[in-house]
C-alpha cells in the first residue's frame, strides 16, 4: 500500500489529537476535500475508527505511526530506528573507533 503525504498528515494529526478529530478539520487545516479525507480513512480502515462522528486512531494505528517515525519527540535521539542500533557497550569498555572520525591530535599515525 502506497502511503501518501496526505495519509501521513491525517494519521499524524489523529495521533496528536486528544479525543479524535472531525473530518472537516482537515479541510480547515489543509483544504483537503471530503473525498480526499474519505479515501485516506478508507485506505487505513484498520488504523482509523469512527467514534460518534469523530475519527480516532486504533492501537494498531498508533503503532503504525510510531513504527514509521511519522512523529518525532522532543529529543530526536529517543527514536533511533532499530536498523541503526548496535549492542550497547559498558562504560570504559574498549571499542573499535571509526578511524576516519578520530581527530588528528589523538590519532598519531606512524610516518
Amino acid at each position, binding site marked *: 500500500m502506497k502511503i501518501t503525504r496526505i495519509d501521513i498528515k491525517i494519521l499524524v494529526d489523529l495521533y496528536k489529537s486528544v479525543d479524535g478529530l472531525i473530518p472537516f478539520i482537515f479541510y480547515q487545516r489543509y483544504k483537503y476535500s471530503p*473525498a480526499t479525507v474519505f479515501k485516506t480513512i478508507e485506505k487505513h480502515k484498520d488504523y482509523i475508527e469512527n467514534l460518534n462522528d469523530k475519527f480516532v486512531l486504533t492501537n494498531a494505528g498508533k503503532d503504525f505511526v510510531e513504527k514509521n517515525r511519522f512523529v518525532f519527540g522532543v529529543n530526536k535521539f529517543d527514536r533511533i530506528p532499530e536498523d541503526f542500533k548496535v549492542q550497547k557497550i559498558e562504560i570504559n569498555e574498549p571499542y573499535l573507533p571509526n578511524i576516519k572520525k578520530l581527530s588528528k591530535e589523538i590519532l598519531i599515525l606512524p610516518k
Partner: protein
Amino acid sequence: MNRKLFDKYFKILPKQNWLAEKESELMKMVSSCKTVDQEDLIFSLLEDFQYVGNDILKRYIESIADYIINESGYDIEKTQIIGMAMDDNPDSSQWILHQLKPIMTKKGWNNVKITTRFDKAIKLMNSEKLTQLILVDEFIGSGQSVQGRINLLTERAKQSYEIKACFVAGMEFGIERVAKYFSDFRCFIPLKKAISEKMAEAKREKAITNMIALQSTLLSEINGKNIETFHFGYGGAEALYSSSGNTPNSVFPYFWWPYDINKQNRNPILTRNEDGLGL
C-alpha cells in the same frame, strides 16, 4: 465550503463509494443548485442510488449464468440466449452477453447459442428449433423496448416457443408491464420510481417542484432531442441506477444531460451516449 456542506459530501461517500472518484463533477452539480432544498434533494436521491461497479456487475452476470443453467429448466440443445439489439448500434445487452460468454464456458455451457440481435434470434429459432429463449439485458426501464421485441416475436414466430428473461436491474412498473409475456422474469435489482413511489408523501410534492426547477437549468433541445422526452427519465421512470457502462435514459436527466441552458458542457456525474446528443 462550510462544515454543513462538507459533512453532506462526506457522509454520502461510505454508501456511494463511486462518488469519491467523481467529486469535482458532484461539486459542480451541487453548486449549480439555487436553494438548500435543491441541494438536499440531490443528496437524498444520490443516497438512494444503485451504482453497480464492475466487480459487483460481474457477480450479477454470474447469477445470470446460474439462473440459465440451474434454474430456468432449459435444455442446452434448445436454449438461445438473446440480446435486445435490432441494429448495428452497440447496446448494453451485447455488453452483458459478451461478459457472460466465458462464464457460461466455465460453468460447462460453452456450446449454448448466444444471439445478440433479437430479429436474428427469431430467424434462428424458426430454422434451428432453438425454441427456449432467454432475454438478457442490463436494465429494463418503462418496458417499451421489451414490449416492442415481444410484438416482433409474436408476429414472426413460426414455432411454439418459451421465453424467460433475466435482467441485472430494472423498474418494477416496467417489469409489471411485460412480465405476462414471459414464463419467468428475473431481475436482480428491482427499483421503484425514486420520487413518486419511494419518497414519503409529505416530501413528494416539494421534491417534484425542485426537480422540475433543476431540470429547467438544462439545455432544452440538443439536435432535435427535447429534454421533455426524458422528463424525470424516459417514460417518467425516475430511475436511480447506473453501472460503469452507458447510463440508462430512464435516469433523471439532471444526472446525465450534457449541456446547461447556456450551452456549456456540464461534465455531469453520469455519462450517457445517445444518438445526436452532442453539440
